[in-house]
């Protein structure tokens, strides 16, 4: 059902709380300041991690993380 997608950061909202890194081990880690190592293009999410990524995006207290599903 799921085709994976991309995780993107709204850099103006992100305050480096590092909760996404805690929620997504092996997919997102935090830099020395707590900001996720996600490039401007985003990080690709495999179909297996899609549910985790959606949940992490919903859980970001600053709504700074976005999951963009791949085109069906």
């Amino acid at each position, binding site marked *: 059902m799921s085709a994976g997608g991309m995780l993107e950061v709204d*850099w*103006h909202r*992100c305050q480096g709380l590092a909760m996404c890194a805690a929620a997504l081990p092996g997919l997102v880690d935090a*830099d020395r*300041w707590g*900001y996720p*190592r996600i*490039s*401007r293009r985003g990080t690709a999410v495999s179909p297996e991690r899609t549910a985790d990524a959606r949940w992490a995006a919903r859980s970001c207290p600053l709504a700074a993380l976005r999951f963009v599903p791949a085109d069906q």
Partner: protein
Amino acid sequence: MNNWSLPGLEVGGAAAGPRPVAWDGHGHRLLSGARLGGAVPPQAHLTQWGPLPGYSLEQLALRAQHYALLGAGGAAFPVHRKLRAMMNRRVGTVVINGAEGETCSGKDQVLLRHVPQLVLDGAELVVRATGCRRIVLRLSPGPGDTGRQMEHAIAARNATRSRGERLNISLSVGPDSFVAGEASAVVNGLFTGNAVPTGLGVPPRQPRRRAYVYLSNVETYARLAVAARGIDPGSALISLSGATQPRVTERAPTLRFAELLPFAQPHDIVITGGWHGAWLRAARLLDTQLTPAAVAAHGGRWGAGAFVLVPSEQAVAALIAVSQFLAQESAGRCGPCRLGLPQLAGLAARGDLEGARALAAEIGDRGACGHPSATSSAVVSALECVYPQRLQRSVAA
């Protein structure tokens, strides 16, 4: 060396130098019909270049593609792709980006002051091809009175037209900062009043509206106006500053840098492509032709055509000044940029190449715009150029 300064930047407590906003009178293509001291009037412009062809979007894109026209704001995006992205889309605004945020660049101001009709031609081609009704010319409040001169140029152009053929152009002045000239910052400034970079959708749209925005740099419009007439628009339009008379010049691309910088010593440094660019010893550049490809082949960057000559004994002072300036010019909205760039400037001041490389990797390509990653590469390039012995040591290790 006496009288040395960097345009718009304080170096080692010395005052900031003047920006290169004066034309030296050399024209090769865009400025070939211009005279020092004023703008080419509409009638003389028409005599030199002939009438503006009426092209569809596809015809205009084919012309741009034929001459491999690239955007001249720094990112070198192919113009034909930008034009074709507007196919079958409603374009709400055509933006002429003249907000030259880079203090070492003045070529857009020179084009606006001396050949405003050529720049307006380029925008009119896009307006006609897209069916858009509105043009906005975005300027920075920098030196000179470019805005007033453009009002005269627009009035003179429209005075020769019947009512239905007049261009609907408004002028808008943004803040005087480095990142305010970035494309998304210009679009945000125009439509929300807050000129900060957020990154653009591709192609960009007006915030809260469905219409698309066609935004391009001043020089790019002038070159499009030449290409549309079936004339090769190629030339080297260059802003020079540092340890040389600050000026803008337009030359044949076959010329070499040694002819522009006759007093440069081999150990002096040339900052190529502006503050986000690459630092090179003059010895590597002086025999190079004035084309983006030739400069890139020697490890340099063309960017918007800004080149700054730094005397070798001022290299460390310039490195500190430029890295601090780039850190200060962060809009401060994205963490990796706000926190990373001051630390990077600190490492640059200590000459810590290894530390700067590690921090540049940490900053990465993150944030809403290209400022943090472009600054990281520029500072690392500057350190490699200023401290070549550390580069060799780290390669050996």
